């Protein structure tokens, strides 16, 4: 039994890692989609899209790992969360359909370009908003009776989930703008930097808003953050987040290339750590802990072998794919 308990925690961290990888990697793809209308039609838009065309598919695969991994390691959580956030999940999937096909379709016919650019932005925006609202719906709690979702199909819609949705849109826009600061140069880069500054402020304000809202959302959340001894473990998270926020704003004003992107990743990392502190050890607040929903040990062990073998390889060839397409995008147009 001891082994089983440990494996459940291991799996919680693996799923959290997959979700984090998805959020930051597809986050910058979706962010570029969200910011797309502000780019000049033609070269600026083409370069923005080309900067992610070779990697978006791999980035999106982390979403399948997050969903598939949840199904495999915590099947009951998967079976409760998806019906509880049904319209959000469907909206996200349809948004991702539009966003995904736009990568190929926008090049096929110049007279359709405007339509697919709109689909790219609309799909990205809907997907980002739906993901943020799903997170909010999870944090505010889901009614469960007899291993099944017991609410109705619009329970998730509250002011709080609107806030988390908008916060996610802003955060993705920040990631996307910082990615473009790294991958573009010249005027386009300056444009991306301006966008990144605005998105950084919006993200920080909304992150702060959600954090404060969380304290009043459920009494146990406030306890985890504000009482001893938990506060000693929890306190470094907001402090480090604040320091990173300052460094990020500074890196955007001194014209660095890759640094803002890495700092925005760090910002997301500590944002997720904060969520971890808020929820742990519940996966479906207020009733289900990770142990309540975990798959049996045999399933956990079998998958852990697979993860142990494949994950280092996945990280290696993903890194290689990024390295192949390293550097600024599309300079040759200047020749």
């Amino acid at each position, binding site marked *: 039994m001891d082994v089983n308990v440990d494996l459940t925690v291991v799996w919680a961290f693996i799923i959290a890692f997959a979700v984090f990888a998805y959020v930051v990697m597809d986050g910058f793809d979706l962010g570029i989609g969200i910011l797309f209308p502000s780019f000049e039609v033609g070269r600026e838009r083409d370069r923005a899209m080309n900067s992610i065309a070779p990697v978006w598919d791999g980035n999106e695969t982390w979403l399948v790992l997050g969903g*598939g991994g949840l199904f495999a390691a915590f*099947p009951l959580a998967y079976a409760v969360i998806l019906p509880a956030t049904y*319209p959000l999940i469907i909206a996200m999937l349809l948004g991702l359909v539009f966003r995904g096909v736009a990568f190929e379709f926008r090049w096929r016919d110049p007279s359709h370009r405007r339509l697919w650019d709109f689909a790219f932005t609309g799909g990205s925006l809907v997907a980002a908003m739906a993901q943020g609202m799903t997170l909010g719906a999870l944090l505010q709690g889901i009614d469960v009776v007899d291993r099944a979702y017991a609410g109705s199909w619009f329970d998730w819609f509250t002011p709080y989930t609107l806030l988390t949705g908008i916060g996610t849109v802003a955060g993705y826009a920040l990631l996307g703008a910082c990615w473009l600061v790294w991958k573009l140069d010249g005027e386009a880069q300056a444009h991306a930097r301006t966008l990144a500054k605005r998105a950084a402020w919006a993200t920080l304000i909304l992150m702060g808003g959600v954090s404060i809202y969380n304290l009043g959302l459920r009494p146990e959340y406030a306890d985890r953050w504000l009482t001893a001894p938990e506060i000693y473990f929890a306190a470094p998270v907001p402090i480090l987040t604040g320091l990173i926020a300052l460094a990020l704003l500074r890196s955007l004003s001194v014209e660095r290339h890759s640094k803002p992107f890495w700092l925005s990743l760090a910002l997301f990392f500590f944002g997720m750590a904060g969520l971890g502190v808020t929820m742990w050890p519940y996966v479906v607040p207020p009733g289900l802990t990770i142990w309540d929903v975990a798959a049996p040990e045999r399933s956990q062990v079998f998958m852990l072998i*697979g993860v142990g073998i494949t994950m280092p390889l996945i990280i290696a060839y993903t890194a290689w794919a990024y390295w192949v397409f390293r550097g600024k995008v599309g300079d040759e147009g200047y020749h």
Partner: protein
Amino acid sequence: MFDGFDALLLARIQFAFTVSFHFIFPALSIGLASYLMVLEGLWLKTGKQLYLDLFKYWLKIFAITFAMGVVSGIVMSYQFGTNWAVFSDKAGPVIGPLMAYEVLTAFFLEAGFLGVMLFGMNRVGKGLHFAATFMVAFGTFVSAFWILSVNSWMQTPVGFEMGANGQFLPGESWWDIVFSPSFPYRLVHTVLAAYLTTAFVVGGVGAWHLLKDRTNAHARKMFSMAMWMAALVVPIQIFAGDMHGLNTLEHQPPKVMAMEGHFESHPDGAPLYLFGIPDQDAQELRYAIGIPKLSSLILKHDPDASLDGLDTVPRDEQPPVAVVFWTFRIMVGLGFAMLGVGLWSLFARMRGKLYDWKWLHRAALLMGPSGFIAVIAGWVTTEVGRQPWVIYGLLRTADAASPLDAPAVGASLLAFVIVYFTVFGVGVWYILRLMKAPPHAGEKGVKRTEKGPVRTAGITPGPTQNPGHNPDTLPSNHEEADDGR
């Protein structure tokens, strides 16, 4: 809206719709990835420009097909939880890990190397690029392996224990679960079906261009390759399908009864019904036309062998017979039509007329989409044929759905139908337009510029302004202009 509907029925329609639409794309991309690998391999081996041209021609079509497969596939990975929550909770410990393996060993592999395959020819060496193409092709196969393992376990569940909480739990051996009794047959039959679907698409496109211009060397090559596949692989597929049918008879006899239209038992030799109108309420096949004893001969290798009919199966455990009966005939009929084209092409080849017989080209063009119809018909046969069970004999489909109201399921179904038909309809139209353009020497790769060859913006070097130098035809050429850093 949808208040008067049955949420279960809507959920079933939604799954059938999204999975059928989805499967169209992998049915092509599994085969096309391998075809691209063969073309690139032949190019590397022979150095002939023709193979590289064909590679680039089909790469553009592959890119669109693959993107549509990815986005419709992500929908599938969430359908289990959104609409089939009870199934997900109960079966998750057994099939969840198999699907996790699919993500880890297949999806990442495909997605990780796809970017290099599509856009990286000028950025990595020829050998590495070929390796990337191989990885994508291999990934599509591994993906088929795992998802068919999941499906097969649901059809022929073994190697599990029942948990106290009502969950199916894995038993001692994962090997038993992964290699459930129907899996090897289903895997071979489905992968061959994907290859043949691709072969007939390639053959149809080749035939179209041969009908326009018999001398087009590129069209000749693709038509010839496709017809070799048709001539050699269709007979293997018919044999594999027969084996799969025998396996189904062993594990899911009511499905075979429905396929055959056998409402009544035949103690001394069952007929093979070629035609009939199944009437499930009356439990009889009306206007039946059959060949005596042939069914027993095929299924039992003995014309006088006894075969049970649906009269041995309780009415509430019978699958809907008419759907299974007809889709099975569509699949088999198309299979034999494919065999006909394959043999015809063999005959034409022997006579040295492969590129001359216009009626052969017309037939191949007509059969271009036949693979898609056949695979969808085959899947409907096997999926409807296992009803009313979602986990065969153990969990009824009716007991597996999410606790959702009909309006929620109905609204999402409507959204899927509208979005899929418009988005994928346009995508298919783009593909058809690419196919309409004749393959030619100096074929371009996946284009990344908006307004043609004026300037290059992107990861692949577009054609430069420098006449007489086309980087697309010199894939190993590491141009400074390409890297641009």
